[in-house]
């Protein structure tokens, strides 16, 4: 259906272009590249697809068709890539500018997500879903003072996830079939010639979810159970309507930049329908039938405002001030009945538990910042102070004491940079922050961060650089005694010849992360959550052209030696592009991916991909 819409739109726009006064067949340009990819693997191919989403099959590498009159702007273009089955993402777009200030855009993309691992915490889960996103816009730019834009979006998500549900003190296999969509229309008007830029956008969005659960086997996933899953159905629907408004104003001149925005949205969610779960207890003992027959609603108001201003005082001095306000209030309720029917139909015991829950969830954040900066000839130093407050209160159900936390926080930062010449660019920054009260026990009440970067264009085609980042965060024993340290270092060197047809690059990055948090195991026994990453990433790439052949190569190694989830991956890509006659190109490529975990080999894979693409430019 969607493809028919896309094709129809393409044909329509082509006809429109034909009917316009534009002289056709004069300045058409484009290219098409398509081919086939072979893929073979040893090990767990599902694990590879989980990570890369790629398969064997046809692939549309690139398609472009564009028309522009001589000495004129592009009037019409069609672009597409990814279609064919080998790649997890597809994209298509149409652009048409018939004149008179009108512009039409139509975009389509599709992303496929797959998940199936053989070990780990979600080894029982398997999912595959697609999201298709359609975007259309009509822009009228024919007025001298303002531009008008109509945007339309339609997203559709379909697929399934196989996973367990809890019941009868066990977990039973089920399939949740996704049926979700989003529709949105918005209109925006923005000024073009006023000294102050103003933009107002009004949007209306609707999200709908009609996921359907069903049994995917009757036996419990863990151990044995006296029950078996005999039925599961969820004929229910969630619908959320969200009108939203956004206003932006900004102004710029030699001595001041100022911008402010206001945002308001009002979400209204309704949830209706039933859920029936049926378990066979034992031969001839009848069934447990759980029926949830509820109606729920949630309303959420979002208000946000911010204003930023920068003043260029003179002599290189600038002062920046900023204020940000966000206020979200939510009220929700759920009422209805939970029915439990025990025994054989007709001779069963029915237990009815009415539910009437009311909850709320309010979050109000404010932040403000003032910063002073001195810029000289290619250098800058700056320092700033920021303060903030957070006011949170929630109660998720009737009787839930919930939380009510008000806290303030503040921090400061200093930094400097040198970028007088491309020969040396350096910058360093230190940040420090803290706050007064906790919302979650893992919130770090002290954060310190230091970053440093240096790069240099040495000349003769060489660019080198290095960077470092240290981060500390902690909170006291009265909370969770959380201690987190992260360090990241990197260095790179690139070279390219003056003609730009040969070069190489090398990069090395390290990342270590060490986290300790006091926890309590189920039952109350104290313990510690320890998470450690000790990783390096090495990449090398090269390209060079010899006659009609261009070679591109890329090699990546990732090694995590940390205690939590050590693993090693390799990736390589070698691509030869050969210019043929009359605008044709042949592309041959080979790819290699490997993945190996230290603790288990169930998800390991070694994948080789080979492909050929024929391209024609016209």
């Amino acid at each position, binding site marked *: 259906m969607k493809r028919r819409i896309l094709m129809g739109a393409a044909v329509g726009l082509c006809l429109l272009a034909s009917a316009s006064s534009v002289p056709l067949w004069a300045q058409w340009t484009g290219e098409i590249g398509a081919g086939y990819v072979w893929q073979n693997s040893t090990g767990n191919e599902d694990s590879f697809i989980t990570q890369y989403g790629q398969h064997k099959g046809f692939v549309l590498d690139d398609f472009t068709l564009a028309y522009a009159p001589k000495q004129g702007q592009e009037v019409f273009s069609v672009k597409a890539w990814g279609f064919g089955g080998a790649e997890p993402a597809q994209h298509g777009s149409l652009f048409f500018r018939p004149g008179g200030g009108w512009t039409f855009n139509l975009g389509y993309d599709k992303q496929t997500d797959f998940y199936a691992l053989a070990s780990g915490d979600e080894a029982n889960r398997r999912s595959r879903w697609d999201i298709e996103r359609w975007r259309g816009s009509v822009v009228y730019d024919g007025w001298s003072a303002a531009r008008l834009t109509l945007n339309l979006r339609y997203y559709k998500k379909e697929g399934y996830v196989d996973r367990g549900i809890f019941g009868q003190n066990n977990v039973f296999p089920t399939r949740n079939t996704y049926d979700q969509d989003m529709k949105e229309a918005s209109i925006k008007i923005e000024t073009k010639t006023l000294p102050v830029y103003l933009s107002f956008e009004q949007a209306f969005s609707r999200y709908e979810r009609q996921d359907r659960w069903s049994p995917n086997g009757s036996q419990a996933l*863990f151990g044995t159970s006296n029950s078996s899953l005999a039925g599961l159905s969820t004929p229910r629907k969630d619908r959320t309507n969200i009108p939203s408004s956004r206003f932006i104003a900004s102004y710029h001149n030699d001595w001041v930049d100022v911008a402010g925005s206001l945002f308001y949205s009002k979400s209204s969610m309704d949830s209706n329908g039933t859920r029936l779960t049926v378990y066979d207890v034992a031969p001839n003992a009848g069934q447990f039938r759980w029926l949830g027959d509820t109606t729920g609603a949630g309303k959420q108001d979002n208000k946000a405002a911010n204003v930023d201003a920068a003043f260029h005082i003179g002599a290189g001095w600038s002062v920046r001030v900023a204020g940000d306000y966000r206020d979200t209030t939510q009220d929700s309720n759920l009422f209805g009945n939970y029915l439990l029917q025990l025994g054989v139909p007709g001779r069963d015991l029915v237990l009815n538990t009415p539910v009437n829950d009311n909850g709320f969830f309010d979050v109000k954040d404010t932040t403000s910042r003032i910063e002073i900066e001195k810029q000289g000839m290619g250098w800058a130093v700056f320092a700033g102070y920021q303060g903030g407050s957070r006011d949170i209160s929630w109660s998720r159900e009737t009787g839930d004491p919930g939380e009510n936390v008000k806290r303030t926080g503040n921090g400061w930062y200093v930094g400097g940079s040198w970028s007088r010449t491309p020969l040396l660019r350096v910058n360093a920054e230190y940040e420090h922050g803290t706050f007064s009260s906790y919302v979650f026990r893992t919130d770090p009440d002290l954060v310190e961060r230091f970053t440093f970067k240096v790069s240099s264009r040495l000349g003769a085609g060489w660019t080198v650089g290095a960077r470092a980042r240290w981060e500390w965060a902690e909170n006291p024993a009265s909370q969770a005694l959380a201690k987190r340290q992260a360090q990241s270092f990197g260095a790179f060197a690139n070279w390219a010849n003056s003609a730009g047809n040969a070069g190489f690059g090398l990069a090395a990055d390290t990342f270590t992360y060490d986290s300790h948090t006091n926890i309590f195991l189920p039952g109350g026994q104290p313990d510690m959550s320890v998470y450690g990453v000790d990783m390096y990433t090495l990449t090398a790439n090269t390209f060079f052209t010899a006659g009609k052949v261009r070679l591109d190569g890329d090699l990546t190694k990732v090694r995590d030696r940390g205690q939590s989830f050590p693993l090693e991956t390799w990736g390589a890509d070698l691509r030869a592009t050969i210019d043929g006659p009359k605008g044709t190109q042949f592309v041959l490529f080979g790819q290699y991916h490997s993945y190996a975990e230290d603790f288990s080999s169930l998800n390991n894979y070694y994948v080789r991909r080979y492909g050929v693409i024929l391209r024609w430019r016209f």
Partner: protein
Amino acid sequence: MARGRLFITVTTVGVALAALALGLRAEDAKGGGLVGAQTCATCHEDTVKAFQAGEHGTAMAARSSDMLNKACEGCHGPGAAHAKDPSKSNINRIPKQDACIACHPKAEALMALNLPAHPRNGVVCLDCHTPGHTQAPAKPLLAEAPAVLCAKCHGDIAAAFKLPFAHRQGDKPFDCTACHTVHGENRTGRLREWKDGACLECHLDKGGPFIYPHPPRNVNGCLQCHTPHGSTNPKMLTRSRVADLCLECHMGVPSFHNISNPKFRACQTCHIAIHGSNHDPNLKDD
């Protein structure tokens, strides 16, 4: 401290309004000594022709022929002196930042405001954009694909996309601009949409509002549990074991959750609606 914040807020709003009022009266001074593109073309014929036929030139021509005629001097400054005495010293060979902002005064001009780290580290428009004398490899007049440009400075983020679990589009690079607005547009976090909007572009069902929300998601958003660019952990979680992630916040979990038993090792096996539920306060039904 509250007074301090109030002071900063009031000062910010007051000064911003004053600046707006003053700015409305500001005049745009024009320089003299313009000679027009025809004169430039007498020596720089190929460059002028290529510019006028290119994306930047044709966009100017669509606005007005006068704008195209002044295009060279709009960026390189008035050329009368240079035309009379051609010399590198009496022309702006490398246009100043203001040259771009003169015609692009909206969100693009506010980069110094929204992304101060870019200008203070010497990043200027022409570090990412081409002026239009040659065909740009990517739109809008970009010197390279967005992911390549960003990686030049943000190497640690580029490295994160090499990790086993990352946002990918197959062989096509994942565009940074899919989530980030490079020029800021005055929204916190530099993301395209408000709060978690960038994530909801694909994960439609995670937005809520939910009748029984999971508080960390409502308060801190997706990044409370997920790393956005790449991770060694499945589902791009911040911990390799789900139970650790949950137990760091949840105390008082009933003792029947024996985590030595596989059934209880992954909390979301039963608590399936971890992002929020419309039916169950314990998040065991979505």
